[in-house]
């Protein structure tokens, strides 16, 4: 086999192939995850189509889907195994673009104004609210939490820098978890919903 390749070359080629095979067998490096100091934080961006499909499935009217399709949704979940309280407070988190500039998170106040303006149905407002990450929560040991945060879509990759106070009085050591390389997907181009009632 491969008589044109010298013996040494064949050995080197086999070694290289073995390395490639080993690499392929390794579990992929955890992406979009921060793990440390007894806390695991996951963050995953969602495409506008994913989010529109989700809320369409919940019966949201087209008027509510419109603003949803124009923002970046970041689904966050976390759990901690510490013995103390960890404070979930997204208002203290930083969202940074590639140049280190802060990006605007769109909190509950923003969405409440949007829904109020369009007189959105109470049931859909409630559902939307329960799918968002709480604005403040004293996470007890082992308590899971998950939900979305929303932001104005940045043009490139961005970083989530999540700050957590600890302890019942927030005077424990602060935990900072960073997840880099997050990318918001392009604005939805789905036109079909424009014909919905």
């Amino acid at each position, binding site marked *: 086999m491969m008589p044109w390749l010298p013996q040494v070359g064949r050995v080197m080629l086999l070694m290289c192939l073995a390395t490639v095979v080993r690499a392929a067998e390794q579990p992929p490096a955890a992406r979009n995850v921060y793990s440390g100091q007894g806390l695991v934080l996951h963050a995953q961006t969602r495409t506008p189509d994913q989010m529109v499909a989700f809320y369409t499935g919940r019966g949201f009217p087209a008027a509510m889907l419109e603003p949803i399709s124009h923002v970046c949704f970041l689904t966050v979940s976390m759990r901690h195994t510490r013995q103390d309280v960890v404070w979930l407070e997204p208002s203290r988190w930083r969202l940074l673009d590639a140049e280190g500039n802060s990006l605007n998170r769109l909190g509950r106040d923003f969405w409440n104004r949007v829904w109020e303006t369009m007189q959105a149905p*109470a*049931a859909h407002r409630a559902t939307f609210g329960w799918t968002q990450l709480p604005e403040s929560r004293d996470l007890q040991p082992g308590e899971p939490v998950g939900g979305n945060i929303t932001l104005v879509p940045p043009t490139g990759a961005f970083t989530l820098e999540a700050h957590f106070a600890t302890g019942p009085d927030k005077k424990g050591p602060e935990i900072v978890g960073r997840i880099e390389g997050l990318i918001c997907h392009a604005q939805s181009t789905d036109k079909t919903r424009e014909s919905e009632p």
Partner: protein
Amino acid sequence: MCVFTATAAEVPPGLMARDGAPAPALRLSNMEGKVTDLRDLRGQWVMVHFWATWCGPCRKEMPTLQSLVKLLPTQRLRILLVNTAETDDEVFAFLGLVAPDLDTLMDRDGKVTEQWQPRGLPSSFLIDPDGRQRYLALGGRDWATQPYPAFLRQITQPPAVNGPGRAP
């Protein structure tokens, strides 16, 4: 006045003791229009469980609640499911597949859920026979697996009645 007997119970992981504040009002109907009022259930323990079909942990937990119903008689623990802000169609399709033996109250506009202020969905409040909040389950779990059934049996155990000739 009922005697709260759960103070000695060891609280299992994921459950948080509450301060005994009165439970908020809860008066809702199921999909057939039958109304249930929490006030009418004084004298027995009640689990008030908030859920939604879109919530992953809720979907996982629901069959375990159906199993729990078989482990603990209704007289010991009444389980009130409260669906948060969904339609009959969504709920009927989900429960029919996942937990067909269970019924749910419908919080159609989500306002009752908001008044209870659960920490997220799913959330389960354990209400004592006096209508006070005693425990809150943090997130979802398998209710049919120990230590949860044992804990629930312990806290819902009726007060012992001393017969003639027995020591008080």
